[in-house]
């Protein structure tokens, strides 16, 4: 009996368990590999977003640099009525005061403040361009026209940088909301936070075109 029992037990215990063990190890490895791949993909999307943001940043900086020159030329050429020039300097100062990078881009409150500052700057820039329409001596001024051309170019580059950033954000946000991305995000302690879109309209687009 004992002999038979012994004879019986070995195949029952060992044969199904050993494959079971291998399979689980293999499954774990596969899952790890998949997780690793998914994680790397998320990191890559995140980095692309950062790159695109750097583009926006560069164009914004370019615009900040153009504005004082524009104001200087306008001041030298004409006596502007009202406080258009003061407002534009204020708007620029408040816009340059907010500089976003890294973590800030996932913070809706910070992004909101930033976008508001940008919108205000765009508004005062548009007003300046509209007001300058009334001064023929400005429209004939070469330095002013050159600056307006550069401003228009910057606005267009900014528009493209914004489109590219938003497209990258869309991909990234969708990826971390998908099941795979969600699991990785939860497993690794939520380092991937959804980013906020950059939705400020360009200034030159809304302003009436200047007859060069």
């Amino acid at each position, binding site marked *: 009996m004992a002999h038979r029992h012994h004879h019986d037990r070995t195949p029952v215990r060992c044969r199904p368990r050993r494959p079971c063990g291998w399979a689980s190890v293999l499954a774990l490895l596969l899952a790890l590999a998949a997780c690793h791949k998914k994680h790397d993909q998320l990191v890559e999307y995140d980095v692309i977003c950062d790159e695109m943001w750097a*583009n926006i940043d560069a164009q914004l900086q370019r615009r900040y640099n153009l504005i004082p020159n524009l104001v200087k030329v306008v001041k030298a050429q004409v006596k502007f009525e009202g406080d258009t020039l003061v407002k534009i300097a204020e708007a620029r100062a408040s816009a340059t005061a907010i500089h976003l990078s890294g973590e800030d881009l996932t913070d809706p409150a910070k992004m909101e403040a930033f976008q508001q500052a940008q919108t205000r700057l765009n508004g005062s820039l548009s007003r300046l361009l509209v007001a300058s329409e009334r001064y023929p001596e400005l429209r004939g001024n070469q330095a002013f026209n*050159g600056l307006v*051309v*550069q401003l*228009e*170019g*910057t606005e*267009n*580059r*900014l*528009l*493209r*940088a914004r489109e590219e950033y938003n497209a990258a954000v869309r991909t990234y946000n969708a990826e971390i909301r998908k099941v795979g991305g969600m699991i990785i995000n939860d497993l690794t302690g939520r380092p991937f936070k959804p980013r906020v879109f950059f939705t400020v309209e360009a200034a030159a687009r809304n302003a009436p*075109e200047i007859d*060069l």
Partner: protein
Amino acid sequence: VRMPIVTVMVAMAAVVPRPPSAEAGFDPPKLEGHVIDTSDLVDDHVRFRIGRDLAAFRESTGFAIVVFVTGSLAGTSIEDVAYATFRAWKIGDAGKDNGVLLLIAPEERKVRIETGKGVGGAITDLESNDIIAEIEPYLQVRDLQSAIVLGTTEIKKRLGKEIGKVVADPNAVVAPAGGDLIDETHALTDSVRADLQRELELFRKTTRRPIGMLVTGPLMEPIAKVAASRFKHWQLGARNNYDAVLLVASPADRAFFVQVGYGGARDLGEARTQAMRAKLAAARERYDLVELVHVACGQLAQLLPRLKLELPPPPPITAEQRRTRTIVIYAIFGVIGGGLLLIGILAIVSRRFRSFGTRSLDVFFVALRAVGWLIGAGRRRKEYEGGGGKSGGGGSSGDY
């Protein structure tokens, strides 16, 4: 059996990524050369010559310039169309982003230069604006050929400068070797001389017409006669002074005369000459030479029609091209000669065996057709299909 195929096709349509389509309805055509025209306003030979010139420029410098004359912007802004087209065509090399797109929309009377991310330093937005300002007068008179020639030349010049290469301008007008301002009185001060020369240079640059000026002493004969005889012998520029202008002034007699070559005179007509005379009257009263030349040049630039700019000269044939051409010519003559020989032999043989039919002729024609196809394949080879270049929205636009 039919069902799964349909499902597979539907599934594939869903999976295959669609090319990035333009914003709001503009669909760029396929890129198959350096000049793409969907407006049908560009002559074939212009497209061919400029395309070949831009291909040669790309091969020698790496910069890819594409000209796109669109029939319509489909209600989209020219900035969006240029960006979408640049994206779809991927002008320039991947990583270098060294492409430039010159987009002209004759229907909407708009023009734009879109620069790749890598050439924003060689052609700044301000410089693209300058180029557009230069070609706009040609676009206004619907001279697309000159606009494209001038636009591509100016773009090439700036890109060439970036890598230290001087680009030849086939339409550049230079001052004549003997000097463009001859002062026989020796009474002009240096500053007046410089001012006059600047005016002449400006006229040359804006109109691309040769111009010269003669300041002479007291007149021995009517000023018109002096001007005509000097004009004949003064080699002002190309084409036997046909399009040239000569200004003659005699401060001693307070006389001023504008001599225009036959080409310009024919276009100027009596009415326009009168108009110019009226404008000049006040300056002639004061007799300030610089003012006189300024008014005369301004009037002439306005009243004289724009000269059509010449197409770029064909690039020199390389040794490799010459070899290929030789091989093709030998192949054609070989096939034709061999075929005729074969037919002749077969005809002789068949007279003996009475079996010469249409089949041998067929073989000959098939062979001829094959050679024709090979030649055609060389011709059909696409000039340019884009690299992997990207645009960041740089450049400038204009209305005309």
